[in-house]
Every structure is written in structure tokens, then in C-alpha cells.
């Protein structure tokens, strides 16, 4: 009886969130999936079963072998950007979090410095990205500086509108999403464990690898999920920083939407969702977040 009531109360407590989730996430997702199997013409969706959105998307994937078809090329490219961004944000994010958690003693300074990390979010996404142009452009600060120092004769073209600039902007934008969960994990590590490791004669490196990293795994995984899901779906940053010349999974969806080809866009969205879920489930296979939290 009490057990039943407890379960009931637990469900009741979870109900508001479940409702929001069902209404604003599951239901729209269901619609997108249904629409992805509809037909369409120039101006409207036709509610008749058709897998045209999918078959069009994978057009040429077999016929063009050994050359890669558009969708595979696009996904490989998106994955590459995602991997680079993930690696760099992890490295930088971990370092920053480590500094905040173990080197900054006072709580006030920890808070102040964490808030400083949010500075990139004080302006709009678009303004932040446009600000790179006077810095990295052909006549930008970096090129001027290097030329002035006599290091280069011709301006470096690859600084802007390249994969370099895309990754740079993504890292700049999303490192914060790594810092916070990793910092959160680190701050909860019992300081006595580190003292014990020190007493047992572990070097700083050994403490890091054998004590701190295993204990911050949940933070790393949560941060990774944030970064990977955002980068996989991003098309604005990749578009602006890549000079619209770099393909991304999100960009394909956008151009389909703009051409009013909603079912094709929905099909691409379902594919993107599938790929992202695969990556995330692989990650959670490595670390069971629920157990670690």
C-alpha cells in the first residue's frame, strides 16, 4: 500500500516534466517522422505514403561508387568538424575546469571566473561570428600583424571561410558547455582521495589519470553530449564561418525547408536524429551516466 502510494507520488512529481516533454518534444518528433514519409509538390505536402524524401537523399549512393554521394560526403564532413570540435573543447574545457576546481581556492573567485566563461554568450550568436571577420579576414588584424612582423608576405587565406575558422568559432562558442559539467564533477571529488593518492606516492600525472579523470567521467560524457548534439545540428555557425561553402547536415535540412520541401527536410531531420542518437548511445555505453551520478 505505502509502496503503491510512493510510486504514485513519484509519478506525480515527474508528471509536469513528462507532460512538457510529451507535448513539446515527443509529439512534434512524431509529426516530423510521419511527415518524412509523405509526398510533396512545389507548394504543399501531400499526405500520401512516399519514401521520396529518403530515396532522394540517398540518391547516387550506390550508383556513384566508389565516389561518395552527397549525403555521405556531408555527414563525413559534419562528423569531422564534430570530432575536431569535441576534441578541442574537451581538452580546453577539462583544463579550464581543472584550474577552476583545484587551483582556485576561494569560492567567490570560482564563481567569478566561471561567470567570465559565459562572456561569449553576452552577445548574439551572429554578432559573435561576424566579429571574427575583421580579425581573421584577408585584411584583418591577424594577417596585418603577421605581415607587419615580417613572418608572411601574402595574407593567409585559410584563416577565414575555411574549416579552420569553423572549428575555431565552434570551439569558442561551445567550450563553456564542457567546462560546466566537468567542473561540477571535479568539485564533488573528495579532496581526501587526492591527498591519499599523494600520500601513497602517486605523481601529479598518476593522480590525474588514475583518480581525477575516472571520477570526472560523467561530467565529460555530459559535456560531450552537449557539444556533439549542438555541432551535429548546427548550420548557422558552419554557414557563416565557412562562407556557406562547407556542407553540414543542418544546412541540407535548411535548404530543403527553404524550397518548401517539408517532407524531404523531415526525412533529413530523422536521419540526423538517428545518427546523433547512435553517437550518444555509443558514448553512454562507455560510461553509464545514471550509475555515476
Amino acid at each position, binding site marked *: 500500500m505505502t509502496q503503491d502510494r510512493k510510486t504514485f507520488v513519484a509519478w506525480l512529481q515527474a508528471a509536469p516534466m513528462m507532460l512538457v516533454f510529451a507535448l513539446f518534444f515527443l509529439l512534434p518528433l512524431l509529426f516530423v517522422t510521419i511527415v518524412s514519409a509523405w509526398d510533396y509538390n*512545389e*507548394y*504543399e505536402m501531400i499526405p500520401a505514403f512516399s519514401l521520396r524524401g529518403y530515396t*532522394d537523399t540517398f*540518391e547516387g549512393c550506390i550508383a556513384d561508387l566508389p565516389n561518395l554521394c*552527397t549525403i555521405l*560526403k*556531408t555527414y563525413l*564532413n559534419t562528423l569531422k568538424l564534430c570530432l575536431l570540435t569535441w576534441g578541442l573543447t574537451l581538452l580546453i574545457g577539462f583544463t579550464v575546469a581543472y584550474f577552476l576546481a583545484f587551483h582556485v581556492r576561494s569560492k567567490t573567485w570560482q564563481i567569478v571566473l566561471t561567470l567570465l566563461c559565459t562572456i561569449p554568450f553576452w552577445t548574439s550568436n551572429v554578432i559573435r561570428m*561576424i566579429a571574427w*571577420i*575583421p580579425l581573421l*579576414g*584577408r*585584411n*584583418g588584424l591577424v594577417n596585418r600583424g603577421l605581415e607587419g612582423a615580417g613572418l608572411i608576405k601574402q595574407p593567409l*587565406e585559410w584563416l*577565414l*571561410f575555411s574549416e579552420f575558422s569553423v572549428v575555431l568559432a565552434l570551439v569558442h562558442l561551445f567550450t563553456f558547455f564542457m567546462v560546466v559539467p566537468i567542473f561540477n564533477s571535479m568539485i564533488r571529488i573528495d579532496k581526501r582521495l587526492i591527498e591519499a593518492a599523494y600520500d601513497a606516492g602517486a605523481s601529479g600525472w598518476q593522480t590525474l589519470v588514475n583518480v581525477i579523470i575516472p571520477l570526472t567521467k560523467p561530467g565529460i560524457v555530459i559535456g560531450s553530449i552537449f557539444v556533439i548534439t549542438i555541432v551535429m545540428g548546427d548550420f548557422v555557425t558552419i*554557414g*557563416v564561418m*565557412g*562562407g*556557406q*561553402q*562547407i*556542407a553540414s547536415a543542418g*544546412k*541540407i535540412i535548411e*535548404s*530543403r*525547408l*527553404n*524550397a*518548401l*520541401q517539408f517532407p524531404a527536410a523531415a526525412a533529413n531531420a530523422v536521419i540526423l536524429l538517428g545518427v546523433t542518437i547512435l553517437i550518444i548511445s555509443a558514448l553512454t555505453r562507455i560510461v553509464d551516466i545514471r550509475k555515476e551520478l
Partner: protein
Amino acid sequence: MTKSSKLDRSISRRAMLKGTAGAVGLAAGSGAITGFPYIHGAEPKVLRYLGTAVNEGDEISKKCLEDTGIKIEYITATTDDVTKRVITQPNSFDVLDTEYFSLRKLVPSGNIFALDAKKIKEFDNITPVFTKGQLPNGKKIGDQGTAPWKVLYLEGANSKTFSKTPTEFVTLIPTVYNADTLGIRPDLIKRPISSWTELLNPEFKGKASILNIPSIGIMDAAMVVEASGQHTYADKGNMTKPEIDLTMKIMTEAKKAGQFRAFWKDFNESVNLMASGETVIQSMWSPAVTKVRSMGIACTFQPLKEGYRSWASGFCVSKAVSGPKLDWAYEFVNWYLSGWAGAYLNRQGYYSAVLSTAKANMTADEWGYWMEGKAAVNDIKAPDGTILEKAGAKRDGGSYDDRMGAVACWNAVMDENDYMVRKWNEFIAA
């Protein structure tokens, strides 16, 4: 929502006609809009105006309110989003300002309402560019693509078929149009440019750009392909699949060779690319060239021997509009064509649909500079008063007849649009 407020309004109108206190009380009691007894003229005339930022000037809405008492509420979106909104939310706007090429999507959707030419005072004075595809002097102009005169009339009030002969049912009442070409930085190129082929000239490797709106970008690409003699299209605005393949192949090769610095999608991006020197040659819009120039940077809207790619836009209303709102819409459109707005548009480098009324609202010097290709006698000012050109300057491309007369094709939606969009994605991924 819209329905209920319309009902309220009809109640209050009836109340006014009866003029009895009881009826007024009933209307007020029924919660009619303000809840106050109806007073004639107290209800503001408001029109929700959906369009792109290009035509939505604050000056225009201010002047319109002053002249007609109609309050314009702008709903601003990109070209693609305007179309999307008409298709998916026809109740969310009253007046629509859009381009003729999108009509091939909008008209079959049945979400827009054709206006009656007989209720447009200046309709017979609209430039023959729209009605006959010729200049006022009778010269025929290019008709490739979705030229406005092909989609100007419908067969009937609720028809979804374009009429080949003039009818009174007009899809879009013409307002503004222009001839687009390449913008260049003459200070960095340092030699004359006269052909579209220069866009893919390896001399400008890494310094060229085109528009990343597939349906417009591919037209610019087609101008280049045709100019370089690689293919002559039957209709650049309606390519066959092999023609799309060919065009995209040439563009893909150029992209892989690093010809393009970036593609641009909105007005400000094009201005930034050009002003910062990232690009020296790119497809561009007239006001963007003006903006770069007003920053003190040399920029030319270069006339090219193969001609211009043109676009045109106009007004229609949502099918949800009726009753007094429809009357206001007619009043607004009539005001728009009555001259003040036309002069305002002309001063930005666009062209207005009714030339005679716009002329009456411009000085002889302004008209000479913008429309007749004459050297400016005094400094030429933008609508906001900033100096655009010093005395003695001439407009790029010359007069109205020179520029509109050299139009080669119009922005278009192709029959193979679906295929084209896929090929464009392939091009981006290459």
C-alpha cells in the same frame, strides 16, 4: 482569433448604422474590441504587411499613416520565409509584398487573393515592363525566367491558372523592380570588366562570390556559362535536368579550384564581403552597392554586355482579408502607387511601377540622375538625407531604358526546382 475579431467588428459597424444607444450598449457589452461605445473613426485602420526588409522602410509607413490614416505593421522575413509563411500561416498577415517568381508556388496554394485592377486608380499607368514586357518606348525586353507579365493575370477571381491575356484579376499589383548585375571593386581590380565570364576568371581566384539562394544563384551561374560560350539555354529560368547538371558541374569545378571566397545570403553579408576586400567581384543588389559606397569604398554596379538578371515585386492580400480591411488594402495600394513611395524607391536605386506619379514627386535633377542617366547637377541624397553621390556623378549602367532594356532574364522558379535544390546541396558539399 481573426474570425472572432472580424465578427466583433461587423457587430460594431452595424451598431453605428443603427445609431441607437441600445445597440451600442449591446456591442459594447458583447466585448467589441475596446469595450467602449463605437465612435466612427476611433477604430484604427491597421494592416499587417508581410515582406522582406528591402521594401519595409519606416519612412513609408510614417507617410502612409499621415496621408491615409492606415497604420502599417511590418512583418519582416527573408524571401524564403515570406513564401513559407504564406503557405503555412495565411491568417498571419493582411497585405503581402512578394516577388513574382514565388507566384508559381503561392497561387496554386490558394492562400492569396487577386486584386481587382479596376479598383487600382493608376493601373493603366503602370509601366509596360509589367504588362507587356516592353519599355515605354516599345522596345521588347528579355523574357527568360518567371517574367512578371507571364504571371500577372489570373483567369478568374478564384482561379489558380495564369491568364495569357489581360483580365481584371491581378496576382500582384506591381510596386518595385530592378536589374541586378555583378558588383565589383574597381580600386582592386584596376581594369575594365565587361562580361559575366569574369566571375569565374582565375585572376580573381578566392575573391569571387555568388548568392547562396539556389533559385537566384543558379541564374547568375547560367549567365556566366552562357557568356563563356559553353552552352546557350533555351530558358535560363527553366532549365532541363542536363542543363542543371552542366551548370552545376562548371560551378563545382570553380568551387573546387578555390574561385569563391564565400557565398552570401543576406544583404549585410554581401556588404561586409565587399567592403572588407574579401571579395572583389560578386553578384550583388543595388542598395548593397550604394551602402558600400556610402562607407567611402569604391564599388561599381557593373553593367555587363550580356545584360542583367531582373526581379520584380508587388502587392496582393491574404485570402483571409475581407470587408473593411480589403477596402483599406486597396486604399493602401492606391496610395503606394500615387507617387510619394515611388519617388522614395527610385531614390534608393530601385524603379517604381508608376513612373509618372513618381516623377512628379522628384526634382528634375533627381529624375535626371536616377532615371535618365544624366550627370547630377547637385549632390544626390539618399531618402534619409545622407549624400550618396557628388554633383557630376552618373548612375552605373545609365538610364532606365539602358538598364531595363538590357534585361536578359528574370528570377524564376523552375519546373525542375526539386532536382535543382538537390544539385545545389551537392555543389555545396563538393
